[in-house]
């Protein structure tokens, strides 16, 4: 008889009523980023979708280039380019239904545009014009969020509210690898999982938070592994494979819509340009690293697939490029017009009704402007 067997009375039992809440295994991401292009799965993807993704990628690349050019011409205050990340931007926009909501971060102008926001209106903030240039309700695109990760709880709350109202709405929220370190990321994912809110979190892991490489940001096996700590599935996808990103997001959106709760998707990608036009990327990374990623370009990957499968010919490529040029020319032309802002609007939206104090201040500014308009004489000095 062993020691153990002698102990009828108190065999070790787990603490009362204790049990794991979920089986962790299905929550863990695949070992390697999911790929579609260049695999057999690609053949199963709707050719129409691939073609749509393609033309959006081409447009998106051109949009990034044009916006960057506009910063040099002083037409944009700042532009955080998503060159190299177009597959994520475009897939995030195309995967949603009209009734769904997109919550972009400050880098995701392109996702907003791909969802239908007017390209000029999407740039209003970055132009130095009003903070948000579009009506968020028009295309169900929340304002571009500058304070990192703070938009994630908004997405959760909106999705939760829609569910409470019985509406069949999914929210997709975008954040960077750096943003995953913020407390708001944690709180948002936790609320989403506890409430089983219909949200999809898309982390664009582009390798850097400004100058800080991922290795200084996290020691996690992958960012997708964070999902298991919230009890939601984590998916890892090649963020430069537009078909794969679309597939993984579509599955997550479907799951959310069907009441299956949130998903965390990590898309592994790379920021080809500097952080913004104001940044000097040579301070923290080498050109060889960038070059390796240029070979893994999202447009290149998709173009190869489409060409090999004869879903795209020279004419179609040409057409996509021309369409992008038209968009760029239009953007350029419209951005070269000076926006007209009314200083009085400063007081218009602080509250539903301006307070007495704001009305006084409004009057003060009006008087100043009137004096200014009357010229140096009128100004009294």
């Amino acid at each position, binding site marked *: 008889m062993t020691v153990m067997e002698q102990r009828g009375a108190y065999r070790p039992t787990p603490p009362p009523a204790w049990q794991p809440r979920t089986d962790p295994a299905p929550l863990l991401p695949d070992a390697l980023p999911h790929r579609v292009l260049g695999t057999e799965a690609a053949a199963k993807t709707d050719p129409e979708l691939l073609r749509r993704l393609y033309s959006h990628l081409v447009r998106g690349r051109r949009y990034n280039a044009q916006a960057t050019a506009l910063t040099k011409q002083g037409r944009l205050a700042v532009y955080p380019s998503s060159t190299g990340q177009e597959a994520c931007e475009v897939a995030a926009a195309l995967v949603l239904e009209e009734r769904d909501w997109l919550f972009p971060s400050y880098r995701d102008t392109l996702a907003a545009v791909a969802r239908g926001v007017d390209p000029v209106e999407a740039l209003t903030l970055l132009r130095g014009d*009003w*903070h948000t240039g579009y009506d968020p309700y028009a295309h169900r695109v929340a*304002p571009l969020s500058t304070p990192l990760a703070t938009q994630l709880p908004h997405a*959760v*709350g909106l999705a939760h*509210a829609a569910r409470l109202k019985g509406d069949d709405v999914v929210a997709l929220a975008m954040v960077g690898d750096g943003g995953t370190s913020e407390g708001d990321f944690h709180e948002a994912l936790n609320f989403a999982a506890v409430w089983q809110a219909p949200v999809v979190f898309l982390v664009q892991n582009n390798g850097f938070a400004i100058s800080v490489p991922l290795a200084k940001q996290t020691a996690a096996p992958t960012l997708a592994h964070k999902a298991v700590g919230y009890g939601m599935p984590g998916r890892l996808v090649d963020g430069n494979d537009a078909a794969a990103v679309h597939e993984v997001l579509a599955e997550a959106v479907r799951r959310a819509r069907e009441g299956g709760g949130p998903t965390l998707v990590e898309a592994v990608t790379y920021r080809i340009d500097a952080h913004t036009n104001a940044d000097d990327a040579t301070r923290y990374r080498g050109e060889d690293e960038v070059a390796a990623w240029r070979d893994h370009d999202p447009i290149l990957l998709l173009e190869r697939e489409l060409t090999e499968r004869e879903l795209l010919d020279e004419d179609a490529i040409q057409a996509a490029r021309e369409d992008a040029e038209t968009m760029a020319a239009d953007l350029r032309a419209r951005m070269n017009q000076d926006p007209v802002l009314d200083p009085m609007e400063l007081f218009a*939206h602080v509250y539903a009704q301006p307070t007495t104090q704001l009305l006084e201040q409004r009057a003060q500014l009006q008087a100043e402007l009137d004096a200014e308009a009357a010229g140096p004489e009128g100004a009294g000095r």
Partner: protein
Amino acid sequence: MTTVALKPATMAQAITRALRDALAADPSVHVLGEDVGALGGVFRITDGLAAEFGEDRCTDTPLAEAGILGTAVGMAMYGLRPVVEMQFDAFAYPAFEQVVSHVSRMRNRTRGAMPLPITIRVPYGGGIGGVEHHSDSSEAYYMATPGLHVVTPATVADAYGLLRAAIASDDPVVFLEPKRLYWSKDAWNPEEPEAVAPLGRAVVRRPGRSATLITYGPSVPVCLEAAEAARAEGWDLEVVDLRSLVPFDDETVTASVRRTGRAVVVHESTGFGGPGGEIAARVTERCFHYLEAPVLRVAGFDIPYPPPMLERHHLPGVDRILDAVGRLQWEAEN
């Protein structure tokens, strides 16, 4: 209008009633926070609401204040009217970024397209023997943040009326509940409670001719007491209860001080950088030539809130208020 006998009720009961009536009147109203469900909140303000309206309308959240307010922002974006409970003043600080960077600015950011009708209920202030972090007066932080309304009741009727108005407001409202008045009682008619609208109106709680005490929230009863005590000194003090720190009712305050020619601002919050500076400065700007003496301030000391056994030394009391009144240069009178 039928005449119903007024019955004594506590401020806590009036707040509960306001939440209940708001939930009943408008299906878009949702209450959320830590322990607001089965427990009814640590102050029992939400007692019974989850049972009556269901857990979807009165929801226990995970323990994360930024998450609570951040999700409330999203709910408001979708047309709901969240009423968020912060468990104590100091535990609202984790949500500060959401307050300043989003709650207060979303309407402005979106040119009016995306208002956020959120009410943030914050039990605040001291005098209840609370250990560290349970007695902060955090109103200065919210006052300095354009885009928020900042409201605080001092009476049972106002607690009901202002909270209904706050929830009905299309703007975000920080609703500061003076903890130590939760159990204060007033005669009140819960059958015909009324919202106090529009927000932003101060009220003269006690008319007087000698000087004006400008105050709000937990200090209102103290000022009324001081005004009674002042009669013995021959001073007839007017007491103005601001009720709303933002918007600020310059009209009522200015009219009072112009009448009396002297004023003391009284609040619990620390003096330096606290609300009293703003109030004294704007009163002086508007009433300079009516003033017989500088507007004085009686406030908490410029220290972290003291431990319970010392808090009575920190809190503005009747004596300290009367001392300040005594320093209003009465010799100038003659």
